[in-house]
């Protein structure tokens, strides 16, 4: 049999609309259902549609248990003809788009609500971490119970030693993100951060210090996927999908994670979009720790492997900088609302490209790149994804 090189379909006629955030709080007495329900309600009210018009739902949440998306539908009184539950943590926002866009494109659903949200009760982070996965339970958590801090400390230790990145380099990104966050009313961090404060912060798990860590919190994010025609009929500003990728358990032979799945798929991403890294007006990455930002710069083609530290030294990352980056402030400064953390960059990109980013608006932003990264199942993050998004032109 000859190897057929099949052409991937584009996402013509399918758009994402209605970037929605339910403002985060550090701790919540509500359950995940409350947060997800509020996100869905906001989406419906904001789009000016009836509840029954939403005939597809895609859910991501860590704290919804024992329910899944199924139980949530009865809880919310929904009868969708298309339902998905995406347990991919930080890659959920991009992957939800991939699933929903194809379903709308194929006619399996008309309007799909993609929602992610989690509660954060005083002890829920410890519970999530201790029961995160079988491999984590058997082979990571018993080793100091450091959670993601410890896993990322090991990756960061390796990355710093091999590629010469310094704490100052990580600090520059964190400080720039904090500057961005000060313009985002939803960000939980309200005080400026200086490089000196970053460097002098207390050590958590060497070389990870306090400001390298995200703050777990409660919150929800969401958006709608529908046809371009429908978005126009509803007079909703929309965002086109130029290309997407996802990958799971990439490079299993690497002894430790120094690259993510983007490195396998970035050529396909740009080729499909007919675009190049230079064309991109802003980048929203998954940033639970600064080292993973560095890997995304490299693996998404903004610089070669090992050169991210130099790239950081040569650019500025604020909203008005020469490389606008994590313009909401990212999880490092907004907070990590569980699975909603995997939507944060995506929803912010939709804001940028629908002109609704307020004070965080990147001037003249037309093309944005969002990347996701999730699920430290054992020693590395397994899920990666990215989406190239474009501002929809006025009808």
């Amino acid at each position, binding site marked *: 049999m000859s190897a057929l090189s099949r052409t991937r379909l584009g996402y013509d006629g399918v758009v994402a609309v209605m970037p929605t955030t339910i403002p985060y709080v550090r701790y919540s007495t509500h359950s995940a259902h409350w947060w997800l329900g509020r996100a869905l309600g906001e989406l419906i009210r904001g789009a000016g549609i009836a509840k029954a018009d939403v005939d597809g739902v895609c859910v991501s949440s860590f704290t919804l248990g024992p329910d899944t998306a199924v139980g949530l539908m009865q809880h919310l009184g929904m009868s969708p003809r298309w339902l998905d539950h995406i347990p991919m943590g930080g890659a959920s926002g991009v992957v939800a788009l991939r699933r929903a866009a194809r379903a709308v494109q194929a006619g399996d659903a008309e309007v799909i609500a993609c929602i992610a949200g989690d509660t954060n009760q005083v002890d829920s*982070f*410890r519970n999530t*971490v*201790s*029961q995160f996965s*079988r*491999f984590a*339970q*058997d*082979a*990571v*958590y*018993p*080793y*100091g*119970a*450091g*959670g993601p*801090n*410890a896993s990322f*400390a*090991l*990756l960061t*230790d*390796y990355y710093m*030693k091999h590629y010469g990145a310094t704490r100052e380099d990580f600090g520059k990104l964190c400080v720039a993100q904090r500057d961005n966050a000060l313009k985002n009313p939803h960000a939980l961090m309200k005080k400026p951060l200086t490089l000196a404060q970053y460097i002098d912060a*207390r*050590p*958590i*798990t*060497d*070389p*990870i210090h306090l400001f390298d860590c995200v703050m777990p919190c409660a919150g929800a994010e969401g958006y709608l996927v529908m046809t371009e025609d429908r978005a126009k009929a509803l007079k909703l500003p929309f965002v086109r999908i130029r290309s997407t990728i996802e990958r799971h358990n990439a490079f*299993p032979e690497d*002894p*430790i994670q120094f690259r993510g799945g983007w490195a396998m798929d970035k050529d396909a991403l740009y080729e499909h979009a007919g675009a190049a890294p230079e064309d991109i007006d802003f980048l929203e990455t998954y940033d639970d720790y600064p080292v993973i930002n560095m890997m995304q710069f490299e693996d998404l083609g903004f610089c070669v492997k090992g050169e991210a530290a130099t790239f950081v030294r040569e650019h500025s990352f604020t909203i008005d900088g020469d490389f606008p980056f994590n313009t909401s402030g990212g999880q490092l400064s907004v907070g990590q609302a569980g699975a909603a953390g995997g939507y944060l960059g995506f929803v912010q990109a939709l804001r940028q490209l629908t002109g609704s980013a307020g004070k965080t608006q990147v001037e003249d932003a037309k093309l944005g790149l969002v990347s996701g990264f999730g699920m430290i199942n*054992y*020693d590395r993050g397994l899920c990666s994804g990215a989406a190239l998004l474009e501002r929809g032109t006025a009808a």
Partner: protein
Amino acid sequence: MTAPLVKPKKKNPVERTRLSTRPPVPRSRSAQGLTRAAAEGSFELQVCAECSTVQYPPREVCGNCLSAHLQWKPVDNRGQLIATTTLRHSNDLYFRERLPWRVGTVKMAAGPVVVAHVHEDCVADGPVRLTLKLDRSGQAVLHALPEKDTPNMSDAAQLRESTCDPKFRRVLVTDGKSAMGLAVAKAMLDAGANAVFLGDPTSWKANAAFDRLATDPRVQVVELDVTDTDSVDRLAASIGGKVEILVNTASYLRDGGILGRKDVILARDAMEVNVLGLMRLAQAFGPGMCFRAADGSNNAVAWVNILSIHAFAALPARGAWSASMAAALSAAQTLRAELSGAGVRVLNVFPGPIDEEWEQLTPPPKLAPAAIAKAIVKGLQDGIEDAYVGDIAEEIRERLRENHKAVERELGQ
């Protein structure tokens, strides 16, 4: 380099005693394969029977060829430390109380990448040896040790969380007058025990070796008859708070099967010492040891039962005694479960025939009591929980694995 352990100061009676906490307990059933290996001090991982890929973390099917035929086998324990971190924060109470804590990523020569506790003498990016040890929950964990032994390496605080070294600890030897008890007491003193409480069940009976040992200033003779609840309780009330390792050497061994007599007096006596004695000791000393299970560097750590390989396979020529050994093993398993909540280890020792007066008629090879005592000390230092001592014990165990019905027939001849 690891600083040598300092002899602990006398306990300050005004200060609150730190209660024990446990490292995380839950494990998958496959991961308990690690526990089985660690319990005996061997280093085994799953190996695929079809493609020979070494697996870690433990799996249900091979991560390479998807074969479901994974076997636990000894594998090369060498590796390279490729990343390390020192935790200064933990989500778990047990680790919070023991910070800072060093962990790292090791690329094994056998293939897998593992996350392990890292010994303070391991050099970053250097070669390491991995060992499987039980933690204070009794679950198996990997420790990365320096490639070669370093001075005082067993004194490192993290490693001591997996071991039960007699060094600077106080040991109760329940019957100090038997050959076994004398050998254990000497071995504990040689291993650096701070004190040995030497039980004397028969103060009316002179024993020159016992009297000689009693002249050592570290030895304190105590009256203890494990068949007498009052005697056990009196001693626990007096020294229960000081016993950090308890070695139950009280033993009753007599020849004879079941049909050869018209009474159960011998059987009852064997049960009285070997089974009920163990239970009396457990009830009297167990709670105090649990209370002190996290009390400083000389915390209560281990309970040692000297059983017999015949706990697993009866020797009909000593039928009543064999039954008491099987019962004692069962009781010891319950005790292990009950002490595990506090993190006190139960070490069960399974020797073959012992060279002592009540086994006079047993043909050689027989184990010198000193050899068993040495195995106990090593078992405590290594932190294992099952020790099979001597060629006969090892052989019977192997034969039981091959065909336990054959062993029944053969021992009955």
